[in-house]
């Protein structure tokens, strides 16, 4: 029980609100996001090491091929040793969506949705919705571009207005419905697979349909999501859980 209490205190309460997603038109209704809780920072290698020790089916070498690419947990010293002491507070990366989801489920949590994640990511240090603030956008862009090649320890960046840390600083993050970024196969040919209302989801017209074409960091996040599969084990993608 004590562990559960500690786990709860590592989460931040996010009040309900609304936000305007990247792929949206000025007259489209904003998206309502209900209240939820979100991990203050990213799941670390130490956290994930505890998880794979308790759940051996998620260890490198044992994980089913459906759930992870061969690079799963690459860089770990062994299937149950996430690295040196210095590595343990780094965010866990090279972790597939299936594994991230299983980790959150084991904590009684879940992955945040794209909407929840983007809603929180729109907060600057002072304002909950800084999505239209050019200065904040420049800051996020610079932060993303300056990410260390090997992600450094979590929890060192300044919290945003919700008290959430490391949103833009270290890695991209898995979301529950990352695969809701629809990138149709033959959008411009006859017999298009998605109807006309969906044209704004196509890459080529993204700059036309997006709420703000200059929101490069948001485009980057959607581009990453569009590039992933559930098995992807990319060293620049980590995650945090929601509840």
């Amino acid at each position, binding site marked *: 029980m004590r562990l559960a209490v500690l786990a709860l205190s590592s989460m931040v309460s996010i009040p309900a609100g609304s936000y305007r997603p990247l792929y949206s038109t000025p007259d489209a209704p904003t998206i309502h996001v209900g209240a939820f809780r979100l991990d203050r920072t990213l799941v670390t290698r130490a956290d994930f090491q505890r998880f794979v020790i308790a759940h051996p089916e998620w260890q490198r070498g044992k994980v089913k091929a459906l759930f992870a690419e061969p690079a799963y947990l690459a860089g770990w010293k062994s299937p149950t040793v996430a690295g040196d002491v210095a590595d343990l507070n780094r965010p866990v990366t090279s972790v597939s969506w299936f594994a991230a989801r299983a980790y959150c489920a084991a904590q009684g949590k879940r992955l945040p949705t794209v909407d929840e994640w983007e809603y929180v990511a729109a907060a600057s240090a002072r304002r909950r919705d800084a999505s239209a603030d050019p200065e904040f956008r420049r800051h996020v862009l610079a932060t993303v571009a300056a990410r260390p090649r090997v992600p450094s320890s979590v929890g060192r960046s300044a919290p945003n207005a919700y008290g959430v840390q490391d949103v833009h600083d270290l890695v991209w993050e898995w979301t529950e419905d990352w695969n809701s970024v629809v990138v149709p196969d033959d959008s411009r040919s006859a017999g298009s697979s998605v109807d006309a209302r969906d044209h704004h989801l196509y890459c080529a017209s993204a700059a036309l349909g997006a709420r703000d074409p200059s929101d490069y960091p948001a485009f980057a996040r959607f581009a990453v999501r569009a590039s992933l599969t559930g098995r*992807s084990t990319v060293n620049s993608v980590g995650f945090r859980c929601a509840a």
Partner: protein
Amino acid sequence: MSLSLPRLRLSLLLGALCLAGCAPRRAESSRTTASVSPRSAADAPSLYDLTSRWKDHRGEEVSLSSLRGRPRAIAAIYTHCTATCPLALGEIKRIAAATDSSVGLVLVSLDPARDTPRALAMYASEHGLDPARWTLLAGSDADIRELAAALGIRYRRLDADAIAHANLITIVDANGVVVHQQTGFDGTADAIRIAQSLTH
């Protein structure tokens, strides 16, 4: 698929983000008739490693592993779809018509709110889907999301009436290993050939 950080960073700085967004899209298009070379059963990714529970159109609870034992062609649908789902159904029906009964057909609903087992049964009946060969599956949001991830199906609810989704037909072998995927509607001949080859 792996993303290199330098490439992302470069594209970010250039503001040329479509590079990252479009590259996989082109890859998917060119995959229209791509086949995955079969691996040994032990280390191959099998859909039947998913442990989710579903309801079929008979209202019976089924696991995905109950589909094991014969090759299957799998597609995602939602029964209220009026856009391209009828086309997708037409394609998978072509596969059904060109193969014998040892190939099973599976339709996974993306719409848990409306596609109850009863609604799926009506859909099967309306479209003349032989219950001996066709399985229509209704699941929870989370389980649909997971199966879609395993199949590489992207989908998004646009509004109450529309769900945008990739028209992807997947052929799996008797062990649930993906042997072929077809995006769009121009690769059905290959899908048929591969489905036939699995029954021999």
